[in-house]
């Protein structure tokens, strides 16, 4: 009798849980759908508040006008370039630090590891970093954009846990076969580390793709801007007209199309790459964990 009752309440729970999960997924996706809807709607429809989830007065002209603007294409190209360039260096350097750190036989690790990990809990702060970058003459260079996030301590630790979990027998066998320690790393370890490399590529790549703040601090030269910084400029422009004053509503609404459209264009590459890498990073994070 009680057993039947239990399974009944569990059935109820399962239904409620499913509904809850549907609601959460819908709430997560809604803002994206809203942006897409706005980007394909006419200015008038947005202005009248008709757009809620589907495009109203469907038009693709916003995309055409944004993509025909030379500056948007330039910023987009910059972002692609910075992301590829930055991600390759970041993943390489992170692996080159994490791999030796995963070897307990390296005696100096007991000094190097705390030295690296401490930076997770304490840092110089915004201004000393800003002063340093300027003193080094990195202002207006791509280096200023890439350097602040070049190596993430947290990612080093994630990668270290991955390497630590690999069997050392293969390495020993390879060493006996005459491969040096460096050869083992490049020829044996890296090819076996695809899950963590894919994870790191996504994490660092998304970081560079998203970064507007370094550009804001260091890139005065407009032709070097990444698209994220351009977005920041047009979104900030929105504060001054539509939200605050609202007396220039018409021109602010023209921007609403363009804003949404630019945001959609910025998110799309991530949406394409993300599902492929997702299974790797769940695996990678599970092996990792925050614990030092």
């Amino acid at each position, binding site marked *: 009798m009680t057993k039947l009752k239990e399974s009944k309440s569990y059935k109820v729970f399962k239904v409620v*849980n499913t509904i809850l999960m549907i609601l959460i997924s819908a*709430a997560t996706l809604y803002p*994206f759908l809203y942006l897409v809807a706005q980007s394909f709607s006419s200015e008038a429809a947005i202005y009248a508040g008709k757009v809620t989830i589907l495009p109203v007065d469907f038009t693709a002209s916003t995309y055409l006008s944004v993509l025909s603007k030379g500056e948007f294409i330039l910023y987009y190209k910059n972002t692609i370039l910075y992301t590829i360039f930055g991600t390759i260096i970041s993943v390489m350097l992170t692996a080159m630090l994490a791999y030796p750190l995963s070897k307990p036989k390296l005696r100096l690790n007991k000094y190097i590891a705390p030295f690296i990990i401490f930076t997770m809990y304490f840092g110089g*702060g915004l201004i000393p970093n*800003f002063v340093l970058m300027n003193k080094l003459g990195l202002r207006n260079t791509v280096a200023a954009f890439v350097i602040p996030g070049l190596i993430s301590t947290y990612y*080093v630790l994630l990668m270290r846990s991955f390497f630590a979990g690999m069997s050392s027998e293969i390495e020993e066998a390879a060493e006996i076969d005459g491969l040096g*320690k460096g050869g083992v790393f490049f020829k044996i370890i890296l090819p076996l580390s695809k899950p963590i490399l894919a994870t790191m590529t996504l994490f660092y790549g998304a970081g560079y793709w998203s970064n507007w703040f370094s550009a804001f601090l260091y890139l005065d030269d407009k032709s070097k801007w990444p698209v994220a910084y351009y977005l920041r400029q047009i979104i*900030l422009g929105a504060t001054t007209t539509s939200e605050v004053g609202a007396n220039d509503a018409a021109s602010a609404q023209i921007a609403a199309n363009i804003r949404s459209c630019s*945001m959609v264009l910025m998110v799309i590459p991530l949406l394409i790459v993300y599902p492929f890498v997702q299974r790797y990073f769940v695996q990678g994070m*599970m092996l990792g964990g925050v614990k030092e």
Partner: protein
Amino acid sequence: MGERKKKMSSAKHNQPLMAHIRKYWQLYLFMLIPIVYFVVFRYLPMFGSAIAFRKYRAGSSLFGDRYVGLRYFEQFIRDQSFWRAFRNTLTLNLSYLTVRFPLTLIFALLLNEIRKLHWKKFVQTVSYLPHFISMVVIAGMVKEIVSANGPINQLVKFFGGDPITFMSAQEWFPTIFITSGVWQALGWGTIMYLAAISSINPSLYEAAKMDGANKFQQALYITVPCILPTITTLLILDIGGLVGSGAAFEKVFLLYNSMIYESSDIVSTFVYRMGVGSSNYSYATAVGLFEGMINLVLLTVANKLSKKVSGSGLW
């Protein structure tokens, strides 16, 4: 003869370490560039915080040029806008943590109850996604959704209310901050919990079933206690960040404006305006250093407490 002997003994003294490095030189070489990076771009700025105690002018060295003691600290302690920023940082972070932390745990437990694998994967994929979206886009989305003719105000109008100018109303900022934060972090926050849950020994559940425990009891008496170390670790990290900015800086910086400083200005945005904005480098560095020290202390205390209570900590 005597000299030779001396040389040999010193060589012998150094031998273990030198031989060790020689044996593993390739591995140590790998670490060289990353370590140089940490020295220059992580540790040098820490020492650059010296300008909190020294006057810094354009053209001074990285460490400023004249020692002025605690002058800048005294200045910001007397500054009302600093305290406003400090208060906002604490209240925003604390209320965000209070809302997000339990929700994340509950969401993880609920995800864990999904039996259909494809459905579970779908919910996970969708809910992790916002973690990877640029804060610029998040801020843009927030502004579109709460704008004068956006969906929220459509709802307000539907129920007969007057449209609200959310972005210039200071009483709305905490709600916007917390809601958008939960939206972005809820799914990602479950990863660690799900990882911990997946490593629980299934025989525990078997035994509980034999003893007649239902699903709710199993979650309460097996799952939660088993992932307690993970819960504590994540809580410590969060507590350590209570006064810090983390991701909050970008979001606040992109969403606030001078009309709503009263409820939105946080320490890191204050540091930005004082430092980069008005070139009071020393003053801003002093504030930043103060923030960093408090964080370090909070983290240490939380870690000690957690070690005492649950036996596990960050270090």
